């Protein structure tokens, strides 16, 4: 891993008796897009709030850009941008004024920068409209504009796609790609696993406040098996036929299809095998082993422990 922009070590936080974060260790390298995944209530937002200095941790340390957040807050936070949950604004102020509030707190920023970030997020035409009249998607983009204002080295996006329609999701995703090309490090939390899969280089998965997996996306997704979905009229017969086959690991019946987990590359043997048995195949679809499957697998493993 290259230069480290964010380093979290042995972080812990309890709310009352409830342990929300437990011994969290994370490193995010410069320029990467880091995905932070977990189910509802896992502690993702809490972690972001701790890293931004909004919540005091019980223990552990946080280094941003080499500066210790607890002892050197202003230097640490200077080049950080963030959108925490749905971004909040003053509805009676315009988009421009809302950004001006942030600009006023950074001595080195020039007013022109506000126009630049509004341009980048496609909001320049609405710059002088009150934020109270904005749609959720526009607020989400304005949130990103605000996060970009101070030339951040790292941006935290908490559920950036949450509540957006497909068009909004596409816009935010292309914005994320754009930021990454600029060399900005991104830390994105989500439970929309498929979104994270599309934009992230590395991920960590958190459950009940503990990180249960962390690593390179391609490594984590590498697997020695593949999954196909078989659509057939003879579901039961096909199921029975596959029972004793060596290269089939697992076979489950879905509503109208069969889900078959088998040795990598053995689908080409599976099809002739079924055809030879006169089973009527409609479709055989290769299911990409997605983060979603991975996540479910991990989650269920955890649950079984």
């Amino acid at each position: 891993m290259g230069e480290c922009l964010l380093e979290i070590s042995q972080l812990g936080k309890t709310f009352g008796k409830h342990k929300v974060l437990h011994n969290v260790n994370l490193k995010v390298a410069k320029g990467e897009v880091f995905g932070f995944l977990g189910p509802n209530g896992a502690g993702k937002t809490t972690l972001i709030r701790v890293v931004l200095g909004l919540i005091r941790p019980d223990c552990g340390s946080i280094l941003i850009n080499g500066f210790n957040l607890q002892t050197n807050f202003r230097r640490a936070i200077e080049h950080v941008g963030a959108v925490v949950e749905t971004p909040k604004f003053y509805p009676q102020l315009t988009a421009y004024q809302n950004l001006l509030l942030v600009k006023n707190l950074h001595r080195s920023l020039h007013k022109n920068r506000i126009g630049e970030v509004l341009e980048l997020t496609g909001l320049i035409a609405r710059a002088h409209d009150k934020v109270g009249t904005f749609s959720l998607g526009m607020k989400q983009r304005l949130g990103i504009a605000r996060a970009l204002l101070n030339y951040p080295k790292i941006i935290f996006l908490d559920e950036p796609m949450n509540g957006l329609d497909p068009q909004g999701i596409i816009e935010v995703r292309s914005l994320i790609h754009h930021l990454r090309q600029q060399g900005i490090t991104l830390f994105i939390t989500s439970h929309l696993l498929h979104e994270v899969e599309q934009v992230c280089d590395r991920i960590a998965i958190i459950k009940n406040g503990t990180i249960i997996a962390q690593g390179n996306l391609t490594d984590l997704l590498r697997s020695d098996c593949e999954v196909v979905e078989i659509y057939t009229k003879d579901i039961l017969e096909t199921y029975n036929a596959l029972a004793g086959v060596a290269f089939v690991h697992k076979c489950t019946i879905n509503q109208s299809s069969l889900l078959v987990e088998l040795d990598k590359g053995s689908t080409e043997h599976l099809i002739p095998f079924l055809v030879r048995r006169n089973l009527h195949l409609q479709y055989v679809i290769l299911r990409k082993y997605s983060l979603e499957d991975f996540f479910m697998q991990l989650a269920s493993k955890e649950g079984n422990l």
Partner: protein
Amino acid sequence: MIGLIKNEWLKLLNNKKFYWFLLLLLIIYLFPVLMTLVVRMNTLNGQVYPLTVFGVITSFVMPLFLIVLIAEIVTEDYLSGNLSHTIIQPVTRWQIITAKVLFVFLLLITLMLFCLLLGYGIGCFIFGWGTDFMLRGASYTSLTGVKLTIISYLSASLPLLAFGLFVTFIAVIVQSGAAAVGISAGILFFSIMLELLTEIGPFLINNYFNTLPFILGAFVNPMTLISSIVFISCFGLLFYFLTLVIFIRKDMVL
């Protein structure tokens, strides 16, 4: 810090409620004019006019305004999630609170000056400047009258600021804007009652809102003025530091 104070002004000047409040002040300053129409008294003139409503303004209107204002810039700012966004900028938490306090102070001075102008403006427009400055049965020269009026108006911002610091303390510990307003207003009215009914007035901050008696009293015995200033400062500083201690440790979960 200057940026933080600028931001508070920007928000205030874009808040419609503020302009309603200025209108309310105008109406209050017109009130004595209406009274003279009803009771046909004609002792008023432009030079004494600002002091006719001074007591009401400083003892009731301004404290209630402060309560609503601070509930908005502290409690509601937090609840709306906007305060969290200020915190993640390169400013420290004590700077955020201190900027809000300084803003309240600047605003108080501005409002007192605005009231002073309203008083003189309306008074002179309706009654003319007049010949003498009669106050509580005593007569002063016009120059002394003007000095007394200006000093009373401006000095009232100090006890009001101290009360504002108390309200800020309430505003950082409660969980809703309505609670901040309710509790602070409740305490204010309770201490107004206490002041009227008991002898503990000197230990109540609202005793000092109307600064005129203290300014007049200082002509006789300057020591009472000094002890008042000491009380007001201690009261304000106590709640300022309590607020800081709580705010700096607070977990911002919104």
